[in-house]
């Protein structure tokens, strides 16, 4: 029987079948669901959410050193965070097979950039495996573990949004148990002193040469000969697009193991066709290497190196054949994502949006949406955990410029605080900063769909966990005045902001209310209504940026199917025209 599965679900199934014992990850779109799937196999494997990707990679690598097959998964920018242990793990090599999933996001559906992480495989000297549908996600995962152990290298299992989140049919296999030998210390391999690293580097290079030989013959790389006129070298989801865009007599070299590149195989394939194309999403990772090997080919000049592809784009860019389509004479207005109705983050951003001299350094999470109009309450958002430290840099710059007018806030969430915001909070204290750190604590990792974190009281496997209290951590750092408020109470938020700014001693703010989508917390759902006789059409309520509040026939209106009765709009109405009913 075949199962309709996303690539993420299939990759998890593949890891399970490959005998995975220990995994650790940090959630990030498009990779999150891999680890959400794994607790299904509780009893046969163990997995956890780590505070960030670096920690996750270290935990998984530790399990590999101990001898078991291990897994870590993260979005593409997470690999930037985890790069340190990953680069050295390549030199050391593995104990049990070690697989690192990178979820790349061409077109930035849910990301701040579209970096092509295959370059990490080259830079860190990892094997790179790229599946192109769900069945391959499952099957290639098993190969990835075999490759990792046979060639003593970590494997970068590179997926993209459309591989992660598209669903296709998958046939299951049985789980293979791998009983590792009894643990024995191997310091020369796993203690990366300069002397050991010196030797390990040579070992790694030798292993990569063997791996390249294997790549030329391995079942992950296959030739589909259909004719000699056109040949296409392709990998990942681009294979699916090329199969539809090119004529039926096109031959394909479909690569599943793309680092090291199987150059003998490419040469042989190229010699059998008149014209060679390289079809890959994002950067010319394969094309540049193929060209460097002296093989003539066409790729990025036609295809481009930005945004995701699809069959129609490949066809029009390669052959200039435009698929017929129609536009209609009416234009849709933009519909960007927004903070949910009743979102606890709204109160803080509304208060901060009122003062033009507030500088707000944001972070990655739902609260990035505080940057959207009409709240428009954000000056910067760079990366996970950067909110506090970027704010510190800005405040020091203002100090040097003699600017005392601007007040600087660093704003991030609870999960982000544990991820890498804590170091920024230490930075501000250590270097006598004037930033007010604000933690928007909604008790969960929200944007990626409700994953637990060190502050939420539960583990990925569903076991109870101690709750790390953000205020205790901040207090231990030296924040003497910590203002904890319910962000739904605008007057309280305003007072906390004013008090924090007035505080002589280091001060911080925590806004605390669980995410509304959090199923384990029962929240009282109500409804706000507009008294149209009292409404003077001043539009103050629209400034809170709630999707449930809009104007109809010149008066404020609240969509009863969306409103949950948080009363933030009612609190800003100068005429008391909105009431919770």
């Amino acid at each position, binding site marked *: 029987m075949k199962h*309709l599965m996303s690539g993420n679900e299939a990759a998890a199934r593949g890891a399970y079948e490959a005998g995975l014992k220990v995994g650790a990850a940090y959630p990030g779109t498009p990779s999150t669901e891999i680890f959400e799937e794994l607790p299904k196999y509780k009893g046969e494997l163990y997995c956890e959410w780590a505070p960030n990707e670096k920690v996750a990679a270290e935990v998984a690598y530790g399990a590999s050193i101990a001898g078991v097959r291990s897994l870590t998964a993260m979005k593409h920018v997470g690999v930037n965070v985890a790069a340190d242990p990953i680069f050295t793990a390549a030199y050391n090599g593995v104990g049990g097979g070690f697989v690192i999933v990178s979820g790349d996001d061409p077109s930035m559906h849910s990301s701040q950039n579209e970096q092509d992480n295959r370059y990490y495989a080259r830079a860190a000297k990892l094997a790179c495996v790229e599946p192109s549908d769900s069945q391959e996600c499952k099957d290639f995962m098993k190969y990835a573990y075999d490759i990792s152990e046979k060639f003593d290298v970590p494997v970068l299992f590179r997926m993209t949004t459309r591989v992660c*989140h598209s669903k296709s049919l998958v046939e299951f296999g049985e789980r293979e148990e791998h009983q590792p030998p009894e643990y024995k210390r191997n310091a020369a391999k796993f203690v990366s002193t300069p002397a050991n690293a010196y030797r390990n580097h040579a070992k790694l290079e030798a292993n990569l040469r063997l791996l390249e030989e294997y790549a030329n013959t391995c079942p992950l790389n296959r030739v589909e000969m259909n004719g000699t006129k056109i040949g296409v070298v392709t990998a990942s989801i681009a294979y699916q697009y090329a199969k539809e865009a090119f004529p039926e007599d096109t031959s394909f070299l479909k690569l599943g193991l793309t680092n090291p590149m199987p150059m003998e195989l490419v040469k042989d394939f190229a010699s059998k066709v008149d014209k060679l194309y390289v079809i890959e999403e994002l950067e010319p990772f394969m094309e540049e290497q193929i060209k460097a090997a002296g093989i003539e080919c066409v790729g990025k000049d036609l295809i481009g190196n930005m945004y995701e592809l699809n*069959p129609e784009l490949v066809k029009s860019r390669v052959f200039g054949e435009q698929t017929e389509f129609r536009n209609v004479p009416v234009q849709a207005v933009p519909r960007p994502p927004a903070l949910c109705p009743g979102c606890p983050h709204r109160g803080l951003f509304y208060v901060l949006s009122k003062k033009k001299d507030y500088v707000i350094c944001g972070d990655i999470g739902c609260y990035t949406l505080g940057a959207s109009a009409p709240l428009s309450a954000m000056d910067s958002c760079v990366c996970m955990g950067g909110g506090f430290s970027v704010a510190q840099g800005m405040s020091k710059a203002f100090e040097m410029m003699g600017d005392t007018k601007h007040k600087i806030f660093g704003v991030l969430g609870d999960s982000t605080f544990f991820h890498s915001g804590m170091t920024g909070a230490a930075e501000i204290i250590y270097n006598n900063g004037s930033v007010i750190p604000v933690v928007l604590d909604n008790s969960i990792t929200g*944007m990626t769909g409700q994953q637990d974190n060190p502050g939420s009281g539960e583990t990925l496997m569903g076991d109870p966990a101690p709750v790390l209290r953000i205020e205790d951590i901040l207090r231990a750092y030296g924040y003497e005045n910590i203002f904890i408020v319910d962000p739904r109470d605008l007057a309280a938020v305003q007072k906390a902001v004013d008090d924090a700014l007035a505080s002589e001693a280091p001060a911080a703010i925590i806004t605390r209310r669980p995410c509304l989508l959090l199923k384990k917390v029962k929240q009282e759902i109500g409804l706000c209504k507009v008294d149209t006789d009292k409404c003077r059409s001043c539009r103050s309520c629209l400034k809170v940026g709630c999707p449930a509040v809009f104007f109809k026939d010149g008066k404020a209106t609240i969509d009863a199917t969306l409103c949950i009765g948080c009363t933030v709009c009612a609190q800003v109405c100068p005429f008391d025209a909105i009431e919770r009913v």
Partner: protein
Amino acid sequence: MSEVKSILLVGVGGQGTILVSKLLTAGLIKAGYDVKMSEVHGMAQRGGSVSTQVRFGEKVYSPIIGRGQADIMVAFEKMEAVRYAEFLKPGATAVINDYEIVPMSVATGAMDYPQGTIEAMKQEFNVISLNAGQIAQELGNPRCMNVVLFGAMVRALGMDHIDWEEVLRENLKPSILDINLKAFNAYK
């Protein structure tokens, strides 16, 4: 290439397109087709514009389509029909819910909700428009609006060889089955 059919579901995050694509793919798999489906997660789901693509046939390669490739569209919200119109084959069918969700730019008065969306779609496509929200309301549960649209779509696509009522029975909890069977058959 053997014929592959492409279905495009568009709407606003939270409107229940996921359930429809689940029912749709379950029926297609039962009928023995190769099926691929693609949806978006994460940031875009927070009240933003969303699209789901379902493709089926003897052998399907790409899970997504480009412009001019969809055989049918189901728009859960009428402005979204216009946004994704270019993905439809010229003259293809569009099942459009005559239902309006106001985006933030319109709510704040910065922009106007476009008028004449359904009429504009009619100029280029075979449009079936229905007020699925009202139909669902009359049935007694506004939440089954998505299944009203689902029923309209499978009839428009001519997929009567699949026993969709059985698919509903196999995929829905007994407590919500009856109302959804009614919703499925509400628009003919």
